[in-house]
């Protein structure tokens, strides 16, 4: 960070704008309606009156990723689902945040050494908060949400996001001619054109 940026950080106007923006962003985190496996049941339980995620302003589960700020990846991500998760993430509007919920989304869980499950959704999308558990109790998910709100509070419009971007390199997981790998690599910058394999014609009769 150079001196100009440092002085920008201490600017009174920018800090006030940051304060208002961060307050608005952290108190209206709208998650995408998106559940993959059993963790989704706990995510739904978090929205029920007993735990009430609405206390944190995050109860409006939007049916479209274009209206959502937060993606809660709740459950096992298979290789077949991985391009879909990446595409949904790309469709969300900036600024966007991701919570990886449960052991399956974190590293693959009990399927970590399997052939069909993505070993950690962090290979596909950048993750802000990890919530361990199998599945995590609603309290743990709420704790993750509180951590995310604290992280948003530290954000600045002149600063960078403090999270790790995935590399987009799947060479150690999938063979080079794999259609899933080709599709996944087409969803990473510089976004090369992906040609779908030709569909087989239906045989008459």
């Amino acid at each position, binding site marked *: 960070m150079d001196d100009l940026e440092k002085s920008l950080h201490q600017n009174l106007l920018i800090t006030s704008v940051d304060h208002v923006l961060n307050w608005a962003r952290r108190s209206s985190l709208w998650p995408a309606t998106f559940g993959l496996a059993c963790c989704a049941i706990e995510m739904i339980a978090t929205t029920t009156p007993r735990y009430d995620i609405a206390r944190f302003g995050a109860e409006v589960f939007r049916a479209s990723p274009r209206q959502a700020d937060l993606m809660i990846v709740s459950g096992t991500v298979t290789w077949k689902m991985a391009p879909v998760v990446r595409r949904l993430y790309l469709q969300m509007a900036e600024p966007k945040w991701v919570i990886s919920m449960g052991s399956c989304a974190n590293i693959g869980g009990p399927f970590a050494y399997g052939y069909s499950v993505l070993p950690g959704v962090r290979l596909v999308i950048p993750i802000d908060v990890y*919530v361990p*558990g199998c599945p995590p109790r609603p309290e743990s998910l709420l704790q993750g949400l509180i951590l995310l709100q604290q992280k948003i509070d530290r954000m600045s419009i002149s600063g960078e996001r403090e999270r790790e971007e995935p590399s987009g390199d799947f060479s150690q997981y999938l063979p080079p001619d794999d259609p899933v790998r080709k599709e996944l690599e087409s969803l990473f910058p510089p976004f090369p054109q992906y040609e779908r394999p030709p569909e087989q014609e239906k045989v008459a009769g």
Partner: protein
Amino acid sequence: MYGLGIAKGLFITLRHLFRRPFTIQYPEEVRQVPPRARTNLLWFDERCTGCSTCAQACPDGCILVATSPREDGSLNKDRYEIDFRLCMFCGLCVEACPYEAIQAGGPFDDAVYVFDDMYRDKHALTRMARAYLDSHDYTYPNGKKAPRPGQLVAIK
């Protein structure tokens, strides 16, 4: 009579207005979980003998125990690590442990920003256990009393 059903329904709605609130305000108050619930694991250094039964019982292989023998025949725990990235909280290690050194019932505030923070070594696990015992009047999750700091105990 016309409208009786509506009146009955509205009466139920009205009755619900005066009930106690249902919500548990999580960060301030924590809901009591059943004693045998499969919650986060706690490992107690003073109870563990390093026998590695938990590591053999773990279906994921997320517990790592490395020991070296002492002169009196007991084991020195060089490493004791639980990989909470991989752990599926099945509680088989809790059932397997003959000394009740690993127990379910830990705190819920285990979300992290950094991926590798979920890998907890001996010291991180001991910090978690100390914090739990400090806030629970030195009682283990299974209801037994724990030794106070500085108190020596022999576990048979």
